[in-house]
């Protein structure tokens, strides 16, 4: 058993993250909300809530409902718009010294290009995550379910920035490998998966959908087997790093994704259950590596493929 500190760093395109544990977009706000309970500087990265070009008020409530070992959300991309985020949130978050990844959501290719431009220019973000898979806005999934549109979108953003590009994939497709290949071929430096599964819940007493938006995105431990399967499938067809997410609650769950092929993990719903989930999982990974003689976490990426 080696007691030396294992190398946990992860490379995503030109970016090197100090460790593979990041927060999932939309579940950790702009990081600041958790600053007085969580040591942000220890995280591999903070992925901020999706930014749109114009401010969005979001969907009508209720926006959330617990389901068996999971939750549905239909926030509807509420955010103050890219300019306000860049001006009011990022400087403070940057002060914590944690790499920031901006999650971008648009309605057309031009939106994404404009967003990428703004965030690249602001100087505070380490990478861009293209959210082509949010199920909670009209048309929000159109890119994520079609390989051609995915390629066009990724290619257009690729053309205007050198920032590392991450494409976030939806599991609500017949064949996720098709979309993955399209994104990578068009220049995505990494893939992030999975966004939420499209689901819904009905209020039996009131005989109507529980969420104001009727349908929402299912997250949490309930979806972990689907997420692990997606990572497993995509690992076989691409050569870029995968950021795994979907129901990661503890270090064993994180290891499941890593062994399936993820180079990094994003912690989502778990933050609500335990605001220290991210740093505890990081501690757990260090422990695991030390007690299993792993010098570099990359040794176990995809190891379950045999």
């Amino acid at each position: 058993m080696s007691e030396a500190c294992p190398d946990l760093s992860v490379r995503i395109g030109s970016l090197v993250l100090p460790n593979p544990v990041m927060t999932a977009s939309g579940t950790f706000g702009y990081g600041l909300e958790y600053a007085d309970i969580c040591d942000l500087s220890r995280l591999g990265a903070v992925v901020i809530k999706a930014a749109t070009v114009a401010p969005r008020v979001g969907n009508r409530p209720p926006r959330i409902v617990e389901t068996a070992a999971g939750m549905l959300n239909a926030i509807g991309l509420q955010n103050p718009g890219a300019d306000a985020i860049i001006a009011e949130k990022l400087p403070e978050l940057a002060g914590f010294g944690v790499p920031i990844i901006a999650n971008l959501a648009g309605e057309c290719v031009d939106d994404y290009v404009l967003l990428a431009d703004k965030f690249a220019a602001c100087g505070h973000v380490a990478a861009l995550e293209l959210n082509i898979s949010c199920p909670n806005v009209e048309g929000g999934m159109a890119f994520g379910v079609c390989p051609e549109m995915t390629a066009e979108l990724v290619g257009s953003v690729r053309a205007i920035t050198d920032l590392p590009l991450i494409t976030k994939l939806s599991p609500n497709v017949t064949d996720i490998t098709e979309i993955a290949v399209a994104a990578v071929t068009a220049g995505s430096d990494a893939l992030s998966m999975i966004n939420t599964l499209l689901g819904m819940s009905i209020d039996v007493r009131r005989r109507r959908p529980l969420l104001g938006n009727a349908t929402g995105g299912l997250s949490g431990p309930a979806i972990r087997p689907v997420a692990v399967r997606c990572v497993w499938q995509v690992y076989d067809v691409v050569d870029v790093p995968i950021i795994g997410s979907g129901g990661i609650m503890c270090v064993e769950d994180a290891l499941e994704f890593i062994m399936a092929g993820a180079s990094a993990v994003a912690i989502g719903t778990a933050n609500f259950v335990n605001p220290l989930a991210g740093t505890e999982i990081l501690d757990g990974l260090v422990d695991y590596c030390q007690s299993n003689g792993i010098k570099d976490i990359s040794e176990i990426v995809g190891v379950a493929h045999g």
Partner: protein
Amino acid sequence: MLSTECELLSNQLVAPDHYVMQILAPEIARASLPGQFVHLRIPRTMDPLLRRPLSVMLADKVHGHLRLLVRAAGRGTEIIVALPSGASVDLLGPLGSPFPMPDEIDGGSDKDVLLVAGGVGVAPLVCLADAMRSLDDTPYIRSMFGASTEDMLVCWTELAARSDEFSVATEDGSAGEEGLITEVLAGQLERGHARVVYGCGPAAMMAEVARMSAEAGVPCYCSFEQRMGCGVGACLSCAIGAAGGGYLRVCKDGPVFNAEQVDWEAIRDE
């Protein structure tokens, strides 16, 4: 804000489906202000998965005890109220924006403070009354408590003991006035001696309380509920309509809002 595993010291049935839970949580008890809440979960299980927001009914800062009043309203709270004493609960808190104290409100310091409680909405008002009694300049507290029936006047003694005057209304007349508590409030407001109204209860009750207070020109603060994810302002789950359009976060901007801040129409429609 703290996240700690705490011991459930006792858990007592106080009315059908209503329990008072006493929890050892010294730091949270010391830090909490009236109107704030804790976000509670049962450790090591995924059923329920998420935390549940519960108002602090009393924070005993000396002994480090928190007292919560919990109504079994659904699957999650049913599992929570079934916990035996000695069990562990995980608390995140204290969270949210507290009630403003009367002296922070522009309303005439010689006048009375009105507290209007409905059902488990009594919990944060007990906490508020308790805090007001230890102010240097304790206001005159008139409390009102409404429920469907006598049984549902849960923890009324806790509120009564901390009020200068205390009235009750039940819909079936089994205790106090027969009718809605807002009818009692109407009488109080007519007296023209109210400085501020604090309310907590069902949305329909609070809407009426807010409307009547506005009509009487009295500032009104209510504590709201919404389904929550994070409880700390990060996930935007707990939205309620804002008066000027857009949404407020119950967990962070609230749960206590000035009645003028919220869009009562939207809340009623939800």
